[in-house]
């Protein structure tokens, strides 16, 4: 495929990798927090809810800057992580972290809604039939919230693909390391004669976004048909 230059390809590949890992890593945390928010009562629930939603409301630059000052190798947390061999600063894992955090609220919201839609009476019925809490979750709750989980994952992925402000603030814009698709578009627009490259990347971004939307529609319709009977 030579309609994209190697530099453009680099950005697309990096973006897909960053978004994939951001989504995969955020998924279990998101599911756990969505379940806690939907089903449990505990002190500080509203604060947790607020924290989860913060990246949605804060300017992305602020989120990125907060990440930078906590996770840079010179900061206490970043220094500790570096000492055990984990580094987020100025490499692709940092971009994935930023993308995952920015997509997290969307993911949790979708999953929480679908968990709230599961009738606890069905879970009770499963318990009376001999299923422990873990089994109830695995055999009743999880299969029934799967559409919501998938929708949340796709939303999170799409958000990660488009994440710009937090990423560029946190891990900068290094080609091959942290220059994701939106950063690359931005970079190409800064140099004379870069519009053609930028346009090609824009086309890729639109295609990926459309694909993600169609996929999530298709999945939710399939699952709905399965659960609805017929």
């Amino acid at each position: 495929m030579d309609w994209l230059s190697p530099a453009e390809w680099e950005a697309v590949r990096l973006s897909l990798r960053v978004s994939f890992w951001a989504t995969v890593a955020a998924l279990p945390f998101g599911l756990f927090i969505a379940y806690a928010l939907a089903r449990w009562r505990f002190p500080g629930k509203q604060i947790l809810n607020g924290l989860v939603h913060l990246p949605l409301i804060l300017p992305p630059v602020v989120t990125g800057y907060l990440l930078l000052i906590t996770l840079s190798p010179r900061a206490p947390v970043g220094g500790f992580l570096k000492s055990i061999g984990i580094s987020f600063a100025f490499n692709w894992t940092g971009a994935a972290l930023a993308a995952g955090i920015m997509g997290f609220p969307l993911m949790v919201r979708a999953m929480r809604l679908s968990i709230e839609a599961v009738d606890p009476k069905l879970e009770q019925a499963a318990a009376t039939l001999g299923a422990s809490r873990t089994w109830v979750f695995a055999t009743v709750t999880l299969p029934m919230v799967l559409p919501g989980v998938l929708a949340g994952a796709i939303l999170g992925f799409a958000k990660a693909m488009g994440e710009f402000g937090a990423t560029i603030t946190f891990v900068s814009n290094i080609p091959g390391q942290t220059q994701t698709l939106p950063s690359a578009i931005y970079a190409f627009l800064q140099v004379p004669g870069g519009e053609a490259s930028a346009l090609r990347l824009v086309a890729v971004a639109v295609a990926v976004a459309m694909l993600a939307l169609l996929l999530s529609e298709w999945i939710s319709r399939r699952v709905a048909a399965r659960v609805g009977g017929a």
Partner: protein
Amino acid sequence: MLEVAVRHRLGAFTLEAAFEAPPGLCVLFGRSGSGKTSVINAVAGLMRPDEGRVRVGERVLGDTSQGIWLPPHKRRLGYIFQEGRLFPHLSVRQNLLYGRWFAGSLLPLDPVVEMLGLGPLLTRRPGALSGGEKQRVAIGRALLADPGLILADEPLAALDEARKREILPYFERLRDEARCPILYVSHSAGEVARLATTVVVLQDGRVVRQGTAAEVLSDPAVTPAGIRAVGAVLEVRVAAHHDDGLTELDAGGVPLYLPRVPQAVGAPLRIRIAAQEVILARQRPEGLSALNILAGKVDSIREGDGPGALVSLDTAAGRVLARVTRRSAEKLGLAPGVDCFAVVKTVAIAREDVGTA
């Protein structure tokens, strides 16, 4: 043998119910708000009462005085809910096998499928089933969990009359064939009459009466489902099927006529005669279209707040209740010890009030 004792405060409502039920089907009978569902949920472990003790045979499912309160999944239950509560993401077959898998005892699927007529439904999903079909699947799912105790919380309440008639016989079979006790919550006198081995009457969170269906329903003081639902239960036997579409019953030597029932000659039956369908007469009526006339003696008259009175009559067939106005009771000179005839139209004995004994 099932032993239940529950004490629980919920705001202004205090539940304080204790009873022991012999083997068979025990109906918790009471109007809504009497605490029936709280009791059954405590037995199931879905609710933990302030104080409670639940024992099935030798198995203690909970005893708060010893700090024991097993979670539902360790109680070996088969719980049939009012709304079925089938798992919508599983096929009928997978629903049936759900509890069996956790029970680990692998009861054969086929006899249950055959008894409940589920064969054609196995590959379908619950969303595509009718209300009656869902309840049949729910019964099968509970049975296949190999339960030590079957619970049913108003399993027929969400069904229309025709569906109720379809499901009731399965509960009769369950009562006659299940090896474990059954606790069945209901507010329907008809269901009590047909199903109960024992009735426990709950009112405002307390047990006010316990006994056999015939004893409890024939007691004019027990009206938890309202005066309109009062009716005595007679234990009878099928005497003959006649060509004109009637079945003749032997009720303690007295012939009674009913629209044709499917049971064979000689089979024991329970019939419920609603008190408001009974007419009283001082002399044996002549030239009357009603076929069923029972001679008896007035045992008691209970007057309510309204214009009505509930007359209880001892007949050769058993205790019969009649709901008449106070005015006619006075006009007829009814009093305890007075001879009297109870008249019941053949068609007044509803089909859902006839069941196997």
